[in-house]
């Protein structure tokens, strides 16, 4: 039944799965950080990832800034944009039901995507790989750029995890996740902290966008397609869990890759089947129990 499966196919899809998983993990991580502190489900996360890719493209085409420069600049630019967004549309409604902030970021997606489509059209634009070529591992061909994405995104995820779980700055964030008004009563500027945290989460999404640009086509809808999966990842992993977001992201990427090998028709469905199973079997999310029981 599975005679078509070769080691090349298996490893190839596993690699694609890991790459996709890297993006899932980075985006879910940013979403979890933002949700943890602000209780905002940032529906615009995908759109900001898309903006990151476009900023890289614009930097390259209009300013001649190469990929490596964009990797630094795009997250800063988009992160700053995110901070402005937070001040303008999230801060005014932060005391209301959190459904409103979800809807506000949803409305922002319509505007951002619409504007980008107006400017750049709906079809995908190519971004030249900064690391052409690759290495033949015997059982598969590994493009250099994909290897770079794998390693770099893993480093980013671990670095963010370390920042939050092991540093003083992270302690403020963890404490504010539990009781932000108490942290503020210690004299810490929590409103600013919220803006910066939103900026950090958004910058992570933009960084993902820059990483993705040479692999996928840069297009206005690249974000919402990804967002759909990210939502499932976050539901499976449990909202607000940092480590849960990272692990579930990679896990889902791998599962998706493997389904492509064994049952190609079902690769999109697999994620959602897992989600529904997870909901039935572990309604609180795979990783949420270890985090907090609030």
């Amino acid at each position: 039944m599975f005679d078509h499966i070769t080691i090349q196919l298996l490893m190839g899809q596993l690699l694609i799965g890991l790459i996709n998983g890297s993006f899932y993990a980075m985006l879910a991580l940013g979403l979890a950080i933002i949700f943890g502190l602000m209780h905002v489900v940032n529906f615009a996360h995908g759109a900001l990832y898309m903006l990151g890719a476009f900023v890289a493209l614009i930097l390259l085409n209009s300013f001649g800034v190469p990929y490596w420069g964009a990797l630094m600049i795009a997250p800063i630019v988009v992160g700053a944009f995110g901070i402005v967004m937070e001040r303008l549309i999230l801060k005014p409604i932060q005391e209301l039901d959190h459904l409103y902030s979800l809807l506000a970021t949803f409305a922002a997606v319509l505007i951002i995507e619409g504007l980008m489509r107006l400017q750049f059209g709906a079809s995908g634009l190519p971004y030249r790989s900064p690391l052409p070529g690759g290495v033949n591992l015997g059982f598969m061909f590994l493009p250099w750029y994909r290897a770079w994405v794998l390693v770099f995104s893993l480093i980013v995820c671990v670095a963010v995890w370390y920042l939050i779980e092991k540093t003083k700055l992270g302690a403020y964030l963890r404490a504010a996740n539990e009781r932000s008004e108490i942290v503020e009563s210690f004299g810490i500027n929590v409103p600013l902290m919220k803006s910066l945290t939103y900026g950090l989460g958004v910058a992570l999404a933009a960084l993902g966008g820059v990483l993705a640009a040479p692999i996928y086509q840069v297009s206005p809808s690249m974000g919402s397609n990804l967002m759909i999966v990210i939502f499932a990842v976050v539901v499976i992993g449990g909202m607000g869990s940092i480590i849960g977001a990272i692990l579930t992201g990679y896990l889902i990427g791998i599962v998706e890759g493997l389904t492509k090998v064994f049952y190609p028709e079902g690769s999109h469905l697999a994620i959602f089947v897992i989600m529904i199973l997870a909901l039935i079997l572990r309604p609180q999310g795979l990783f949420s129990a270890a985090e907090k029981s609030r």
Partner: protein
Amino acid sequence: MTNDPLLTVADLHAWYGESKALHGMNFTVRPGELVTLIGRNGAGKSTTLRSIMGIVKKRKGSIRFDGQETINRRTYQIARRGIAYCPEERAIFASLTVAENLTLPPVLKPGGISDDDLLRQFPNLQQRLRSGGAKLSGGEQQMLAIARILRTGARFLLLDEPSEGLAPVVVREIGEKILQLKEQGFTILLVEQNLQFARRVADRHVVVENGVVVDTLDAAEVEANLGRVKNYLGV
């Protein structure tokens, strides 16, 4: 000691959403004083502390601290003026270790207690530094909650029912700690339901009923009018 109040609350109104909790509170706290807010459950004592701290956002009237109006300031700005707040439910962060909890509040101005001195004053915490915040007993949590607000440099402490839910022996310990803090020059506004505890530590008592101040008695007056005070508290 000057006689200018450190804190002057005048005609303070506060709301939780649509429902009004304070209906024009008036009282003062002088430097170095230990004042309690006493009254029944739901009288508005905790709300008063939360309003002073700016945690209850919807409020009207005047709260002057150290000569400056703070009613329109945000919580962190009020904290930076030199007020520290210890909430009723202690709010020890479960995802932080004891050490992280203790050193989380930043040093905002000179005059705070150094970390070494804190550990000397709260020796129980010394051995528990590495354990998780949620692992402490109720009494240890209360000690930690008080200890951690002493390092910021704030000289005015808002303590919300530190005796609540604790064994008598622990309550006694907490009481001694609070008297020690008063001796060290801290000004303290304490919310209490435990009259015995309040009588032991306070210079003056402000009785709160339905969101307004109905009586103010100094320590001697309370002893002379114990029946009346007990009636206020419904005990």
